[in-house]
C-alpha cells in the first residue's frame, strides 16, 4: 500500500530482469540471438504500443502525443544517458554540465543547415559530432587534471557558458533561436516531415542500437579496463602504468560526441531550437537518469534515461505536482537502492569465484 512497496516491486522487477539475463547467458547462442532479435523488433514497434490492450494503457502518454514523446524525449534521454554514463559511470568523472555538449551538437546542425549555410542534415550530423567531441577535448584538457568535485562545478559552469553565449550572440541566433533546421533525408517510405514522428523514432532507435554496440566493444577493450581502473582508484591506476589523463580525456570526448549526436538528432526533429531548450536543470536531469538507472551499467542508463523522459509525460495528470513527486522518488530510490535500479555488476573474474570476500560491503549488493 505504499510507494516503497511499488518501488520494491520495480526493483525486484529489475532484479528478475537481471536474473533473466543470467539465465539467457546460459542458453545456446541461437536462443540468445533470437531472443535479442524479438526484443529489438518489439522496440522498433514501440510507437504502436498504445494500441495494444494492457501494455498500451501502461505506456501511453495521455495529454500528449506518444510517438512525439518517444522522439523528442525518450530517444534523446536514452542517448544522452548512454553518453553521460561513459563519463560518470565508466570513468567516474562527475559532469554537471553535460547539456553543454548536447547544445553544441544541436547548434552546430542549426547553424550549418539554417542560420549560416544550407548543408543537408546528413552532412551536418557528423560535423556536429566532431565539433562536440572537440568541445569535450577543449574543456577536458585544462580541467581533467582537477580533482573530482572541482570538475563538477567547472563542467556546470561550462554548460551555463554555452547557454548564455548562445542567448547573447547574434551570430548564434541569440534568444530568438534558430528555425527551419534541416531534417534528415527521406529514404523510400520513410518520410522525415513535420507531422509524422515515427520515422524519427526509427532513426533514433537505430542510432541507439549502433551506439550500444560500439560502447560494448569499447567497454571490453583496453580503454574500458583503464576506465574501470581509474574509477576504482585513480592513484593505483596511475601507478600501474595507466595514462589516466589520456583515458579520462577519451571518456570525456566520447561522452561529448554522443551528447552532440543526441543534440543533432533533436535539432533535426524539432527544426527549431533556442537557448531555453538547454537549461542547467537539464544537466541535472541527465545525471539523475544515469544514477537512477545504475551508474556504470549501460542497460541501467538506458532504463534510467527512458524512465526520466517518459514518467513526467505519463503522469501529466499530476500537472504541477509531478516535479515534486519526481524529487521525492529520487530521494527514495537513492535511500533504498543506492546503486540504481539496475546496478553495475562487478565483473566476476574466474579467480575471484573461488576467493569470496565478506559479502555485503560497500559495493556488493547482496540481492
Amino acid at each position, binding site marked *: 500500500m505504499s*510507494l516503497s512497496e*511499488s518501488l520494491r516491486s520495480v526493483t525486484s522487477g529489475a532484479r528478475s530482469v537481471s536474473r533473466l539475463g543470467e539465465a539467457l547467458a546460459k542458453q545456446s547462442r541461437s536462443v540468445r540471438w533470437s531472443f535479442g532479435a524479438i526484443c529489438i523488433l518489439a522496440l522498433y514497434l514501440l510507437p504502436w504500443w498504445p494500441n495494444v490492450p494492457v501494455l498500451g494503457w501502461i505506456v501511453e502518454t495521455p495529454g*500528449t502525443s506518444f510517438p512525439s514523446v518517444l522522439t523528442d524525449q525518450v530517444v534523446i534521454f536514452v542517448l544522452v544517458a548512454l553518453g553521460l554514463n561513459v563519463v560518470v559511470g565508466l570513468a567516474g568523472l562527475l559532469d554537471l554540465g553535460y547539456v553543454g555538449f548536447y547544445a553544441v551538437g544541436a547548434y552546430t546542425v542549426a547553424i550549418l543547415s539554417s542560420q549560416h549555410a544550407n548543408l543537408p542534415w546528413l552532412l551536418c550530423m557528423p560535423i556536429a559530432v566532431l565539433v562536440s567531441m572537440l568541445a569535450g577535448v577543449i574543456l577536458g584538457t585544462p580541467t581533467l587534471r582537477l580533482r573530482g568535485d572541482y570538475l563538477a562545478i567547472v563542467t556546470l559552469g561550462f554548460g551555463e557558458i554555452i547557454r548564455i553565449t548562445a542567448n547573447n550572440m547574434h551570430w548564434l541566433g541569440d534568444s*530568438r533561436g534558430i528555425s527551419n533546421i534541416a531534417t534528415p533525408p527521406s529514404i523510400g517510405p520513410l518520410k522525415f516531415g513535420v*507531422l509524422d514522428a515515427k520515422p524519427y523514432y526509427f532513426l533514433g532507435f537505430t542510432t541507439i542500437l549502433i551506439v550500444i554496440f560500439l560502447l560494448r566493444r569499447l567497454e571490453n577493450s583496453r580503454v574500458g579496463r583503464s576506465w574501470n581502473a581509474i574509477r576504482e582508484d585513480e592513484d593505483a591506476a596511475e601507478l600501474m602504468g595507466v595514462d589516466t589523463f589520456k583515458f579520462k580525456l577519451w571518456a570525456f570526448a566520447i561522452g561529448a560526441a554522443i551528447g552532440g549526436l543526441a543534440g543533432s538528432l533533436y535539432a533535426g526533429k524539432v527544426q527549431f531550437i*533556442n537557448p531555453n531548450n538547454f537549461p542547467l536543470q537539464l544537466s541535472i536531469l541527465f545525471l539523475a537518469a544515469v544514477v537512477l538507472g545504475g551508474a556504470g551499467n549501460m542497460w541501467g542508463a538506458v532504463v534510467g534515461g527512458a524512465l526520466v523522459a517518459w514518467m513526467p509525460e505519463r*503522469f501529466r*495528470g499530476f500537472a504541477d505536482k509531478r516535479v515534486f513527486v519526481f524529487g521525492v522518488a529520487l530521494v527514495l530510490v537513492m535511500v533504498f537502492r543506492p546503486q540504481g535500479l539496475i546496478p553495475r555488476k562487478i565483473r566476476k573474474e574466474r579467480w575471484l569465484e573461488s576467493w569470496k570476500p565478506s559479502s555485503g560491503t560497500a559495493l556488493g549488493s547482496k540481492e
Partner: protein
Amino acid sequence: MKKSTLLRVSAIAVSLAFVTAACGSDSDSSVTEDTVASEVTEDTAAAAVDGVTCEGVSIAFFGALSGDAGNLGKNIRAGADLAVSEFNTANPGCQVGLVDFDSQGDPAQAPALAQKAIDDAGILGIVGPAFSGESKAANPLFDAAGLAIITPSATNADLNDNNWKVFHRALAGDDKQGPAIATYIQKTLAAAKVGVIDDASEYGKGLADIVKTTLGDAVVASDSIDPKAADFSAAVSKMKEAAPDAIFYGGYYAEAGKLAKQLRDAGVTATLVFGDGVKDNGFIEAAGPAADGSIITCTCADGASNAEFAAAYTAKFPGETPQTYGAEAYDAAKAFLAAIAAGKTDRAGVLEFLGTYDAAGVTKQIKWDETGEVAGNAVYAYKVEAGAIAVIGLIE
C-alpha cells in the same frame, strides 16, 4: 529468498493498483470536454430548434497553465473559457469543448503537445500558443496540419516572417509597440536622455532593441540583466551615473518590480517605462511605492474598461476581474465560435472563415490581413497611480 516470490507478486499487484489510481486521477482532469460532448448528443434532439447544431467539436487552449508562467496562461484560458461557455449557453444544440494543452511555456514540450492537438480531429482551432518561443516550436506543425491558430499574447515581431498560413494574432506585434513606446518617451514625456535595460530574453530584448533603434542617439546608457538573479546593482549603477530622464525596461513584471525598487533605492528619479509584459498586478506588488508614476504600454486593450465584458467575466469567475490578454483570448475564441456557428466543421473551413472574418470584438475590430496580423495597430498607455494600473489612452 523463498518468501520473496509471494512478496513480489503482491508488490506488483499493489504497484499496479497505484498506477491505476494515478491514471484515474489524471483522466479526471482532462475529461471535462468529453462529458460536455456526450451531453451534447442528448441535448441535440431536444433543443435543436434553438441556435446551431454541431457535434463533437472543440477548440483548444495552448499555453502555460502550470510552471513559472502559469498565471499568465490561466488569465488567457479564462477569457477563452468565458467565450465558450457563453456560446454553449446560447446554443444548446452545439456544445463546444475547450481542451487544454499545458506547455508550461517550454518550447521543448510544445511539438509533442501540438501533435496531440492535431491528432484530435475534433479540435478546429487553437487559442495560443501563448508565448513566442513555443510558437516557433509548435506553429510549423499546426501549419502542416492546416489547424488555425489565433494567439492572444505572442507579440514577437518576427513571428509572421515564417509564411505560416494558419497564423493569426489577436493583437498588434512588438514592431508596432516598440516605435509607439519611443514616441511616447520623446513626445509625451519629453525625455532627452533615455536609458534602456532588457532581460536578454526573446521578448524583452526584442522589444528593447526596437525602442533603442527608434530612439537613436537619445539612448545614453543601456544594459542587460539576468532575470533569474536578485541583484541588478551593475545596471542600477550605470543608470545612476548616466542620469537619464526616462528608463525603458523590456522584460516581465517580476523583474521589473525588483528593478524599479532597486533603481529608486539608489536614488534614480527617471520616469520608468515598461512594455506589455509588465502589465500585471504582480508588478505593483513587487515594486510597492516604487511603481508609482510608471508608464506601461500594451497593444492589449483594457478588458476591465469594457463594462459588459467585465460584468460577464466576474459573473463567470466570481471575485475576479479580467486580466492581461483575457479580453484578447475572448475575442480569439469568439472568432472560432463564429466559424462553428457558420457551420464550418472542418479545419480548412475554419481557416478559410477566419480569412474573411470581420467583427467587432471586445478589444478592437477583429479582421486579419493575409499575414495574420490584426488590422489596426492600437497601442495603449497605462499609468500606475496609487497602487493600480489605469489606462490613460491611445498612443498617437
